[in-house]
């Protein structure tokens, strides 16, 4: 596909130098206060801590690490432990106040503020919600919000809530920003030597069958009968599979599931429309899901293997649908 790049068409533009920083939750909330931005999560827990005058002294070095390790093992209620954690963060942020005042003048601090301000003014917001099943040593979710304003795209992301990644760049960097958020480590599951199945490349399954494979009862013995009622399953080459094959495919997806992604696109000034992209990660491969129907009306989930960088490609058509036809009107 020839790609031709032409020069500047309009007036001179500003340049957006990309950046990516890891900030503590309390820092982000404090920064948001400073620039008057409302964050996409509740901040009352942090607000309460920030407003307290009696914060405990800062622990440092080994004492801090030991305290941190004990935090989750105390007999105290989890909410008290969370409060203690945030207090400790807030105290350290206070300790750094002088340093921060110096930072105010530097370009890095200005860039952080500007990035958060741009996020707060975003005309379009992409919300990523990722549920992870990568094993006990990994977190179980990713929450991320990507906003676009002017020439800038800004993302906020967190795994546990304790730390937040703030990243920004030009709109053209969105594909890589999005890919970064869903690029996951390889799973460490032991390979089954008896498993000689080819890697999945694409599949089609009736939606009911997909859901039935993952109900609490795990009645795999009934899946072939259900598959017979809801035909339409097929493999990568589009060849139809019989009921037993469709049932086996559903079980394979369920047992190999390592992540689920829900990406929602919204526009600030439109409360009637939202866009949705649904992905599943089976073993180490992401699959983009799109809806379909058989000739007889059976609802189908059509899965296609994708790369993290394809998230932008999937979001493009959705953005086209969410964006108003009056966009750009002077």
């Amino acid at each position, binding site marked *: *596909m*020839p790609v*031709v790049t032409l020069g500047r068409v309009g007036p001179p*533009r*500003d*340049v957006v*130098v990309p950046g*990516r*920083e890891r900030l503590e939750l309390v820092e982000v909330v404090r920064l948001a206060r400073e*620039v008057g931005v409302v964050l*996409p999560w509740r901040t009352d827990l942090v607000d309460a801590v920030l407003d307290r005058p009696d914060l405990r002294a800062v622990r440092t070095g080994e004492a801090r690490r030991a305290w941190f390790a004990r935090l989750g093992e105390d007999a105290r209620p*989890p909410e008290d432990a*969370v409060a203690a954690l945030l207090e400790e963060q807030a105290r350290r942020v206070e300790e750094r106040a002088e340093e921060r005042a110096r930072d105010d003048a530097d*370009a*890095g601090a200005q*860039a952080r503020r*500007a990035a958060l*301000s*741009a*996020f707060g*003014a975003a005309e379009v*917001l992409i919300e990523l919600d990722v*549920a992870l099943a990568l094993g006990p040593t*990994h*977190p179980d*979710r990713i*929450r991320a919000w990507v906003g676009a304003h002017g020439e*800038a795209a800004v993302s906020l992301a*967190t*795994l*546990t809530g*304790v730390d937040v990644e703030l990243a*920004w760049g030009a709109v053209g960097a969105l594909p890589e920003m999005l*890919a970064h958020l869903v690029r996951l480590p390889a799973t460490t599951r032991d390979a089954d030597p008896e498993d000689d199945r080819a890697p999945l490349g694409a599949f089609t399954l009736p*939606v*009911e069958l997909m*859901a*039935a494979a993952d*109900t*609490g009862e795990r*009645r795999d013995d009934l899946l072939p009968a259900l598959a017979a*009622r809801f035909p339409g399953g097929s493999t990568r080459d589009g060849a139809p599979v019989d009921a037993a094959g469709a049932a086996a495919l559903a079980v394979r997806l*369920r047992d190999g*599931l390592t992540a*689920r992604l*829900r990406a929602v696109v*919204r526009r600030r000034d439109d409360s009637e*429309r*939202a*866009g*949705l992209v649904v992905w*599943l990660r089976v073993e180490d491969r992401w699959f983009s899901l799109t*809806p379909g129907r058989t000739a007889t009306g059976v609802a189908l*989930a059509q899965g296609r293997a994708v790369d993290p960088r394809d998230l932008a*490609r999937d979001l493009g*058509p959705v953005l*086209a649908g969410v964006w108003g*036809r009056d966009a*750009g009107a*002077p």
Partner: protein
Amino acid sequence: MSEPPIVSVTGGAGGIEARYEDLETLARLFDDTGDGLRSAAWDDKAIAANGDLLESAVLSPGSFADAEGAVLGATVGPDGLAVSAVGFEVDALGIRANVGILRGVDDLQRRLFEGLDYLAGRALGTILPGLLLVGGAGLLTLAASNPALAALVAAHRDELAGMGKEELIAFLEDHPEVVQHLINGSGGLLDGLLSNVPPGLRGPLLAGLGLDPLHPTLNGAAGDLAGLFGDTGYEVTPGGAADAQREFGAPTSLADLIRSLDATNGGMPDATGEVPAESRPGDGEIDIITIGEPPDVRYIVNLPGTDDFGVTGDAVRDSRANLELIGGQGTAYAAGIRAAMEQAGIPPGAPVALVGHSQGGMTAAYLASDPGFRDAYDVRHVVTAGAPTAQIPDLPDDVQVLSLENTGDVVPLTDGEDNPDEPNRTTVRFDGATGDIARNHGLDVYTEGAAAVDASTDPSLTESLDQLREDGFLGNPGPTSTSTYTISRSGG
């Protein structure tokens, strides 16, 4: 025995009054019935193997066979109890699956509304204009927190320190790895952001932030997908909302072509360049421009972005009830376009150029790839503005696609580098960033980009424009007429 129909509840929670508890009770009822029948069935089968029957088999083989056949027929035969039991249990499973789907749809809807509330209800942030314009010193500061970048920047420290804006732009263009490092670092989010926060605190903290968990389940994903199974019916009516029919002459240039698409989208401007209120189009309007006289006729179909379809409602309707979830499929629009072309009397096999903006362009590419549509019409050209088209992997060789993309436009996000190398798909990227993300997607900016294409001497572009001329879509001196159709969703 015919299987009882499953309770079909898929299709979105919005229009369904089913209560999950009731449905689950129904599932239990089916399940219990299945258990009871199955138990009875196996009890009966045990009879087939009991001593009396075995004995009779020795004494009277015929009577044993009859008895065994009767018992087995009543249990595992096609209409037997065991089969019935399986049928009931499958129903129970199906109901539970649908309940799971519905719960997923509800969860999705709730999150959607929360997000919309967030966007609509928050105070605007204090914008600090220009602060993203970071000079060389800023880049150095950023590099200091990024080891991967530090070495590269260190090598250029002196020259970066004195850079102006244009030089910095040039530096970033010459060193794309800088952007790559800053955006992506060495891996994904998990590699860099995992804290050593005790696992027991992760859930409570996220809950305290109001961030509900998403469950890594297939039925949850099925629930998300079910939200996309909306109504795909459509209606096509001749005419539009403007008082006067829009009339277009044959375009003489690509800019002319995009300008006419802009007029279909936003209305025909008057002599002052403004669009009078009585000339504004309604939602879902498309224009079909007929050029030439029989038998030498071709058709340009102008396809604006179609996102206002069917959701405008009236003031008394709850906008939440109208929430439309978009998955990028757009099939109702595509079907409506074809129906409008049929209504317009475009004869089978007629040469056609589809010209679309945003979702209109996406739909144009989709139609050009649809064998059924191409059987009906000779699609020679697709011209798109601000439309993602990479999701259409296969287009026939005889369809020429020219895609205009403003680098500042968030909508055509797709990266041309990943597309298949096909000589009939030409993508033009132009730098038309305006500083306003909405305007970057606007057709006025794309008209400027089209003018840049007209002026370009790039061989790919001159070839594309030559083909449009040779096929009579640009610079055709023949007479023209325009007809307007309005496409809307139906049955919603």
